């Protein structure tokens, strides 16, 4: 059940982003989760309904995009789909592969409710300071 701690960590980041943009509330959160991240999307959704209560994301919707597992073979250089416990090359069968997708646990984007004045001020501040949200 570490989905709850993952969720709390995610909401702490969302809080910081909302504060940075002087947003009154968060309306949507998009995550990208791969099967090899160790996170179960269904459990994360459940944890989210508990963890968001009382915070700036109290009424936010959580969208979880599942990413496929893909590997690139070091021997034949081809890419193929794979499954969590079989990450060998789908073309030549070699196990010397690199995972190119499937272990992501990313906070992809946050949708904020910001009134236009504060947004413009925050935007200008962002541009002048060169802050990037990465």
């Amino acid at each position, binding site marked *: *059940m*570490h989905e709850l*701690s*993952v969720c709390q*960590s*995610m909401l*702490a*980041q969302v809080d910081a*982003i909302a504060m940075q*943009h002087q*947003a009154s509330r968060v*309306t*949507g959160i998009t*995550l990208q989760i*791969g099967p*090899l*991240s*160790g*996170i179960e999307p269904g459990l994360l959704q459940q944890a989210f309904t508990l963890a968001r209560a009382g915070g700036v994301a109290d009424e936010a919707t959580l969208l979880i995009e599942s990413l496929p597992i893909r*590997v690139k073979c070091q021997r034949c250089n081809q890419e193929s789909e794979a499954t*969590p*416990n*079989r*990450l*060998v090359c789908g073309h030549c069968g070699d*196990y*010397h*592969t*690199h*995972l190119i997708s499937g*272990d*992501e*646990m*990313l*906070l*992809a*984007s*946050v*949708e*904020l*409710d*910001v*009134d*236009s004045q504060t*947004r*413009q001020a925050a*935007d200008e501040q962002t*541009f002048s300071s060169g802050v*990037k*949200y*990465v």
Partner: protein
Amino acid sequence: MCDTCGCNVTPGNRHLVAPGGKFSRVDKGKTAVDVLQNLLSENDHQAAHNRSHFDQHGVLAINLMSSPGAGKTSLLEKTIDALKNRYRIAVIEGDLETENDAQRIRDKGVPAIQITTGNACHLDAHMVHDALHQLDLKTIDILFIENVGNLVCPASFDLGQHRNLTLLSVTEGDDKPAKYPVMFRAADLVLLTKTDLLAVLDDFNPDQATQYVRQLASEAPVLRVNSRQAAQLNPWLDWLEQEVEIHRQCLARGESHRPAIQPDGARLHQHPLAHP
């Protein structure tokens, strides 16, 4: 500049408000911010801090993971017996409850800090950091972090360690790497433990276990050990000494090293999406 006719959009910031850009507006009064941060970035930040502490003091940190009862503490006891005259060893023990494991280690004459997690199923970088305050890193060569016995959650949390060790006891079944791919994929070394029992267990095939590890695209060595016989720990002790040496060489070059498989956050810095 106003906010209605678009005159505040310039060539310099157009990419930010274009569809998919950082400030593309979804609805009136709403802003979408692209982030692309690891969900555990708070933990990862603390882990990087821990790792730099270790590196500063020349400490090699090894994270031990397995199911409960696979023999992590027994392995550490025998390892301390074998190496305590050559290396200064310390242990951080993670368990839901009790000081039992830390006491077993202290009985061997090395410092041990017990972290009791309550109901938490894994250690995280903050817990380890708190424990580090109770250790004098200047007096340590190898720090073992014995994670909570669990083949699921510990794999997702970077603690700042340099290497991951996953134990699989032969009583558990040789298909555990296929059942718990996230955990076994994270291993830099897999130890098959309690191999003295292979004589009476005809359903555990060590080669099959190795094969399942390979199917995770892992080149990690899969070694067989038995903590009850000192001589049968040699493959593990050799690996450990080699790692101490690799660590020293890395530090001498001013580099740090990390487990071969990284949680997504570490990789993100090279990800093309991270800096659009």
